[in-house]
């Protein structure tokens, strides 16, 4: 088999399965950095052996097998506690059963997302941690998107991973009543990946903000992992609506074009449609939340492409709901603007 074909196969596996492999290994050892090292070694072994031996029938199982052996070796070298040995024994058995059956190995990415957005983790490390572990985004790229030095970023990531391991932050999906709050941390961390891009957009005047597609990928993953969580759909709809207007946001001379003056022909109708589908699924659960409201406001703006006017009364109403759920400065300003546009400026200014 030619080397380029093998490399392409390895890249495909890395793209499709990196987060799943890390999540699987880390959920069993409690050690994210250890899982990354082991999987890194497994990919190196694949680069060395697959060109000669051919791509294995089940590449993920092959990588898991090699990574697991690496973790056992590393654990032996460190002479770790009895407890870790038990974990590794468990991985050995599970990896063997994965290799023996046609079934896919279990998806632990949701647990990994909850670990990354655990309140015991430094808030500024949560989003970078997700990008790195779930999507495999390069640390240097994350650093540049967050406008910090690569050294500072990797230090922050190492610190967070050490805490996960040493303080034993559990790989688990929280149960109600804790669940609702913990989900909101995961949502906020994903949304931060999207909005972080906006800051770098100002700096570089680029029309594409750095982490938009990664943030949307995380949002998509979350809707797959939590299909019954309306806010996950709401968040994805919000990001898709914003992203749909990327081409219309700047004029050819680089000037910013406000939303209500954008050329709707430049909006991506396919993204708008996808956003609407998610917003529709979210509504089916009859549990309103911040991201659904924000997405709904974007949805009203998006309908200008068809109706040619903006229903400010509708927007004002949605902001009213948003101010109740999340009284932040942005939603207060948004509400005032919407009320003023709807033709009731005094209420907009004087009503708290």
């Amino acid at each position, binding site marked *: 088999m030619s080397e380029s074909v093998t490399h392409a196969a390895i890249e495909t596996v890395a793209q499709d399965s990196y987060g799943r492999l890390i999540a699987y290994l880390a959920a069993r050892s409690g050690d994210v950095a250890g899982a990354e090292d082991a999987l890194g070694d497994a990919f190196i072994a694949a680069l060395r052996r697959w060109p000669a031996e051919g791509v294995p029938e089940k590449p993920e199982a092959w990588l898991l097998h090699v990574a697991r052996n690496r973790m056992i070796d590393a654990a032996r070298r460190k002479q770790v506690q009895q407890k870790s040995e038990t974990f590794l024994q468990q991985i050995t058995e599970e990896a063997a059963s994965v290799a023996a059956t046609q079934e896919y190995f279990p998806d632990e990415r949701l647990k990994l997302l909850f670990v990354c957005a655990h309140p*015991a983790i430094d808030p500024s490390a949560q989003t970078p941690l997700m990008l790195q572990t779930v999507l495999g985004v390069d640390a240097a790229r994350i650093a540049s998107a967050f406008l910090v030095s690569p050294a500072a970023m990797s230090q922050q990531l190492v610190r967070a991973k050490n805490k996960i391991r040493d303080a*034993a*932050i*559990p790989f*688990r999906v929280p149960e109600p009543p804790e669940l609702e709050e913990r989900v909101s941390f995961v949502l906020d961390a994903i949304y931060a990946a999207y909005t972080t891009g906006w800051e770098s957009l100002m700096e570089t005047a680029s029309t594409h903000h750095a982490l938009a597609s990664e943030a949307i990928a995380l949002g998509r993953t979350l809707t797959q992992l939590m299909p019954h969580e309306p806010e996950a759909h709401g968040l994805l709809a919000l990001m898709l609506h914003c992203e749909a207007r990327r081409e219309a946001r700047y004029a050819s001379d680089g000037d910013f074009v406000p939303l209500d003056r954008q050329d709707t022909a430049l909006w991506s109708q396919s993204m708008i449609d996808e956003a609407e589908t998610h917003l529709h699924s979210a509504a089916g659960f009859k549990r309103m939340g911040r991201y659904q409201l924000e997405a709904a406001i974007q949805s009203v703006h998006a309908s200008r492409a068809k109706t040619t006017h903006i229903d400010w009364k509708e927007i004002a109403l949605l902001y009213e709901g948003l101010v109740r759920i999340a009284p932040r400065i942005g939603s207060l300003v948004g509400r005032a603007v919407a009320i003023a546009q709807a033709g009731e400026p005094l209420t907009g200014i004087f009503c708290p």
Partner: protein
Amino acid sequence: MKYALLVHQSQEHFDRRNDKAAVSAGRAYAEALQAAGVFVAGAGLDSPRNATTVSIRDGKRQVHDGPYAETKEFLAGFGIIDVPNLDAALEWAARHPAAGFASLRYVHC
């Protein structure tokens, strides 16, 4: 995993520690820890007013009175609990009846 549960209280809370309600709540909490099999060690601490500090400067021992509580809340007690993970430790910390806040530290052993 063993965690040190460091319980911080305000002076106001601390002054009420011998009230009947506080004593029975404290006892119930200790019993719950025992019943769950997670209790390793623990104690309430005397007032920081009666604390004595030892410091070593250039190999010499210096003893002085204090520290006086400069913050609104101070360390009033500690416990060591043995639980599977941080979330379980956080559950116990949140149940402490007299904590203004409690911090958790993983114990190396």
